[in-house]
């Protein structure tokens, strides 16, 4: 993944005192600012109500940052029956007001690079890109793993990965070590230019040390998975999926809360029938629901929960690898931590790896 060049043509590394952080936020008036906020014991990215209300910490939100570039619900167009029996369509592109998201986990930044691929390629999705281009992702390097089920280092990631991020902050205690990674990231620093100092060589060393230490703190590993894509190809009809899915209850948690899952549905939401008027709406969809890929004939190629679990694993560890040469999993561990019945993607993939050998 090539990281886009920054304005000045050289890496912009700066130091920001934590006490100046609210001042920096005040300078970002032009942006809609999001950061993790705790409500009812659950963290989520929410719009920031005031510059003093952001505490960046090693937390894992329930819903990933993908919801900002790929919201659970968005409009495509409006339709309206006209007097001459025609239909008027009006495209409803999202507004491109700038957005900045603080506290993004490096695994989520990497995940956005994967959804970027899906929404580009043969068809460029204007709705996705309008939001994506307007969004600046400010990552926070993980000092300690935000989840006991973190395993980013097993799927080509790291707790200080820069992929997909515009700016990476590393918590040095009293200060943040700030690395601008793109033009958007640099612009954000320039907004609060006076607050940022040039780092001393020992600051960089300290940041690097914290980053190296963080990798060692990751408890969970998914090793030797190079052959898993090929293995999965041969296991499509295996009874393995029946056994593994016995305890699955078919909810949408693992996929809706996955930073890389991007399946969607489209529906016409009718507001009035005379004249016929409404909106075409895109919402998240998930392979775990019974009407996913339901054909209009009534046939469903994935009728059982076993075929739905298989779809989730195959998409992440076979199909995506075949198409985009990347695992479609960045190791955030949400699907493990939040599964009501403890289905563990690491265990499932390990079992695939060891199946029949």
């Amino acid at each position, binding site marked *: 993944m090539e990281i886009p060049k920054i304005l000045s043509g050289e890496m912009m590394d700066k130091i920001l005192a934590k006490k100046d952080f609210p001042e920096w936020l005040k300078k970002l008036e032009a942006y809609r600012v999001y950061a993790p906020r705790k409500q009812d014991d*659950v963290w989520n990215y929410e719009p920031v109500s005031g510059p003093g209300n952001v505490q960046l910490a090693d937390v894992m939100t329930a819903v990933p940052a993908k919801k900002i570039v790929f919201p*659970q619900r968005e409009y495509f167009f409006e339709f309206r029956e006209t007097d001459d029996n025609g239909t008027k369509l009006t495209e409803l592109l999202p507004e491109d007001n700038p957005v900045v998201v603080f506290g993004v986990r490096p695994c989520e930044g990497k995940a956005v690079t994967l959804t970027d691929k899906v929404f580009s390629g043969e068809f460029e999705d204007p709705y996705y890109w309008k939001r994506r281009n307007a969004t600046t992702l400010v990552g926070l390097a993980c000092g300690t793993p935000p989840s006991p089920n973190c395993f980013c280092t097993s799927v080509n990631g790291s707790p200080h990965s820069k992929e997909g991020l515009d700016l990476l902050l590393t918590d040095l205690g009293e200060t943040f070590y700030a690395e601008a990674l793109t033009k958007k990231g640099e612009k954000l620093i320039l907004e609060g230019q006076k607050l940022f100092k040039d780092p001393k060589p020992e600051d960089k060393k300290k940041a690097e040390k914290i980053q190296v230490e963080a990798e060692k703190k990751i408890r*969970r590993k998914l090793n030797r998975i190079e052959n898993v894509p090929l293995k999965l190809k041969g296991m499509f009809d295996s009874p393995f999926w029946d056994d593994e899915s016995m*305890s699955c*209850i078919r909810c949408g948690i693992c996929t809706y809360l996955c930073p890389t899952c991007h399946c969607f549905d489209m529906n016409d939401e009718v507001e009035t029938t005379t004249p016929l008027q409404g909106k075409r709406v895109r919402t998240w969809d998930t392979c775990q629901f019974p009407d996913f890929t339901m054909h209009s004939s009534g046939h469903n190629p994935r009728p059982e929960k076993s075929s739905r679990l298989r779809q989730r694993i195959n998409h992440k560890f076979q199909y995506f690898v075949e198409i985009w040469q990347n695992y479609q999993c960045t190791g955030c561990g949400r699907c493990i931590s939040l599964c009501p019945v*403890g289905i563990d993607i690491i*265990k499932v993939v390990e079992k695939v790896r060891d199946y029949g050998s």
Partner: protein
Amino acid sequence: MVNIEDLKSEARRVLKGGKVKYIIGYERASETWKANPVFLKNPEDADKLVWDPTCFHNLVRFVVDEKRRKAKEKQPDTRPVGIVAKGCDSRAIIVLLQEKFIERMDVYIIGVSCESTGVIDERKLAKKTAGKTVQKVEFGEKQNYIVTTEDGTMDIPAAEIMADRCLECIANIPVVSDHLLGDKTKRAVARPFQSVEKLESLSQEDKWKFWTDQMKKCIRCYACRSACPMCYCDECVVDTINFAVTADTTAEEKAQRIKWLEKSPIDSENIFYHLVRAIHLAGRCIDCGECERACPVNIPLRMLNKKMEKEAKELFGYDVGFDADQPALISCFRDGDPEDFIR
């Protein structure tokens, strides 16, 4: 206290005798301190069974799956499935029996008494352990839990981290079972609707604000429905899967199929979904609290169902899930019922 060896040996015995098709119980997989559902087919697997304060799940959910599976088999194995059931779970079995969804002979129930405690609330525990990694949670001897973390053990009074549903539980020992383990002393609960009373005391405006704020959080993952043993409709209002399409079905008919609610997670649709579920569970919910535990955004869903349970109790003197021979609340009318429009 339930002796785990007794649980294992009973499971081993029934599996060995071929008395059951398989047993649905709890195991603890490596890398987690929480119990997970497990399906045991062989007697030697019985050693996997655990019984601890993390056995949250209402395994009756999987009895519903089994019925569906059996219906699709050409030559179904008609033996019962074994199930490890807590008090609340056993009440779910009673409701399924009342509604004739299953027959008594479909299940072999190994009942486990929760005695004087119940299962824990993970979020309450997380506050106590303050970031320390939990390794194990066990029942203590005197209404307490022994929590093992990376830093040693903590002795926590049960009331401090017990799930709310267990604090208000009216069936600490299974109501129905084929083999019952653990102490059989019934525990009295002074205020079984305490949590609802708090909400009831709010003004109508505050209640509306409370619930609309909560419903805004919903991402419609349907974990609440999926975890519920009572949500067994062939076709749930939220997903249209049984619309009969033939070669003659016109595009217009397809387009005009009944769509009860939109997929959009917006206030109107979220509230509609949750109210439909609450109404469908009135007089049926046995307060296992799985909807609330499964919810990834922590909506207090149990309160909706608990309120319905309270209505059933106060209006009709109906206790859910205690008597399989009693007609289900919503399918019967008695002379003493308060509404007389039906006469």
